[in-house]
């Protein structure tokens, strides 16, 4: 009896201390003079995980192209999956910051995960360089010296689309987005620069996959054009159903880049010809950095890079420029800030600079889906906005 009991007590003790064991198990050994660690938290499971995959692949490609270095500093990128759950992302961030003593983090796709992770990173004195999500609070009132956005502030995507719709002379637009913060921001952003009339405004469900009801509403409203923002798989489903409903032939569609990337295009095929898109980058950009990137990405991963891939790549380049400036040090955030701010890197999108709030100031382009050599492709047309920052920069004081 006593033996049994002792066994039980021992197993109880083992369980109580299990977290310690687990934590040390999950840590790779740290060698002296090891490369600089960069923590990447991104979405690799669940719907929309291909976005995280492209960000990761683009980032790692930049590291590989420099032979395992960024800006001359050897780096080790630790990638973990947040499974699109804020809590999970936070847990990983905590481990990265405390156990791994990582100061430099990146990778998050979705703004709700970012909302949980960013305050922790910043309060702990870390630096976060965002390859995708950039919600308005972090660009405005709650902006931070150590928070950098490489892609765009969320609203800019939609502002450029609103401008394009105005430029195209569409007088009556029907606009749709999923019912979550980024979706609501999208429609607000679109309306900010759109001069015409809104024929209808519909919020879809984030877990919705069948849009038949919305198609009927659009048809009934007979607008001049449709603007919709549905990232990832949602956007693909929406677009296919739009085409299947025969709407694309009558009602042209304008999109921001997250709703029309090369994956979407593959999915939709020829039927997508004629769709208008605005973006800060496209794979046909005629600059050396972009060409080099597209060729390398295709060679390594055997697919055309999406915007997400490009954003991951540019994020790595931006970090590289900063590391070059600090000699590979990230401990002095003030020095890192000074080195990062000039954006001394050859961006794949050509012109790139940071605004006062550490968010990009860049040009936006109109793209159109056209048939190129028998296959639909996004073709860059004209510039929609020049040196466009964001609406929140004026509220930002470090």
């Amino acid at each position: 009896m006593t033996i049994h009991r002792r066994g039980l007590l021992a197993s109880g003790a083992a369980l109580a201390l299990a977290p310690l064991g687990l934590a040390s198990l999950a840590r790779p050994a740290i060698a002296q003079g090891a490369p600089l660690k960069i923590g990447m938290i991104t979405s690799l499971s669940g719907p929309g995980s291909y976005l995280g995959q492209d960000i990761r692949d683009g980032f790692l490609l930049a590291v590989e192209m420099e032979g395992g270095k960024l800006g001359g500093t050897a780096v080790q990128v630790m990638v973990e999956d947040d499974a699109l759950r804020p809590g999970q992302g936070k847990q990983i961030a905590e481990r990265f910051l405390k156990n791994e003593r990582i100061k430099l983090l990146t990778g998050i796709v979705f703004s709700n995960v970012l909302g949980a992770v960013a305050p922790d990173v910043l309060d702990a004195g870390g630096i976060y360089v965002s390859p995708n999500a950039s919600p308005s609070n972090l660009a405005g009132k709650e902006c931070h010296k150590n928070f950098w956005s490489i892609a765009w502030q969320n609203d800019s995507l939609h502002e450029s689309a609103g401008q394009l719709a105005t430029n195209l002379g569409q007088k009556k637009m029907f606009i749709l987005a999923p019912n979550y913060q980024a979706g609501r921001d999208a429609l607000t952003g679109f309306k900010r620069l759109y001069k015409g009339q809104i024929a209808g405004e519909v919020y879809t469900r984030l877990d919705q996959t069948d849009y038949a009801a919305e198609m009927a509403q659009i048809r009934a409203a007979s607008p001049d054009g449709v603007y919709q923002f549905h990232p990832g798989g949602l956007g693909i489903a929406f677009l296919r159903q739009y085409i299947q409903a025969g709407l694309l032939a009558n009602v042209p569609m304008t999109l921001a880049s997250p709703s029309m990337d090369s994956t979407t295009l593959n999915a939709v095929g020829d039927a997508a010809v004629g769709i208008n898109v605005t973006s800060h980058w496209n794979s046909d950009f005629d600059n050396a950095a972009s060409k080099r990137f597209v060729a390398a990405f295709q060679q390594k991963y055997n697919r055309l890079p999406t915007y997400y891939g490009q954003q991951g790549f540019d994020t790595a380049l931006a970090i590289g420029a900063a590391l070059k400036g600090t000699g590979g040090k990230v401990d002095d955030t003030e020095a890192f800030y000074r080195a990062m701010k000039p954006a001394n890197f050859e961006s794949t999108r050509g012109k790139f600079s940071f605004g006062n709030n550490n968010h990009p100031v860049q040009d936006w382009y109109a793209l159109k889906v056209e048939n190129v050599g028998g296959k639909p492709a996004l073709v860059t047309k004209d510039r929609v906005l020049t040196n466009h920052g964001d609406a929140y920069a004026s509220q930002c004081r470090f």
Partner: protein
Amino acid sequence: MALLLEQLLNGIQLGVTLFLLAAGLTLVFGIMGVINLAHGSLYMIGAYAAAVTATATGSAILSLLAGLAAAAAIGMLLEYVVLRRLYARDHLDQVLATFGLILFFNQGMVLLFGRQPLFVNVPEALQGFVRVLPGIDYPIYRLVIILVGLLVALGLYLLIQRTRIGMLVRAGATHREMVRALGVDVRLLYTLVFGLGALLAGLAGLMAGPILSVQPGMGEQILITTFVVVVIGGIGSVRGALFGAVLVGLVDTILRAYVPGLLRQVMEGSEADALGAGLASMGVYLLMALVLLVKPRGLFPAHA
């Protein structure tokens, strides 16, 4: 008016898809007493198999067969390896084990086919529109889904009411012991019923493929709604599943189409849209809660 009719058709089409999923789920529920959260995974498997085959061969027929075969085969394998051991367990164990299966299948699809969503096109013959009523053009493909769903409902009705297997299935839903006493190989019957359910889930998945994007996790997006259908209809009742599915499809579609508009009458536009979308999402759950409060065992309970 035309808009309303079109919305009704949309509601029925959604309902029919839900029915294909719910029919299998309700039989498995009713006969084996198993809560199978992994039913959505079979839907996903059907969609994936069809999408992959369509891309590889370009044949709609082959893609159809592949989707059905894969879902049914994996369904029966699943029954044989895992679910069979859960019949005697309580619902908790079933929920836990099938929850684990969901994780496994979703990540398995990522490992096999990657994270990029896959696509299938609507078969050539089914592209285009048909004028169902003056002023209403409706996609042929969606009409075909409605038709297939109704044919399956009819087929199931005949199978259950007119055949020996159906007799056993019916008896199984109400008098388990009696079926055992008749000397029927219950294990085989269960495997077959499970396979049939999986087949229907696969059919729903492969038909949804050209409309939606085929991706990991697609099963869970529809799974919970399917459970709502099953419970509203009454567990074990195929008739209830059909009725519940069409009801849920209609309610969901109509609420989504009209609630934001109604709210706009009383509040500011974007607030109304956001809240309306939320209320519309709650609609089917509210419907289920109401049905259960009035009829705690659903509309057509099989255990009379």
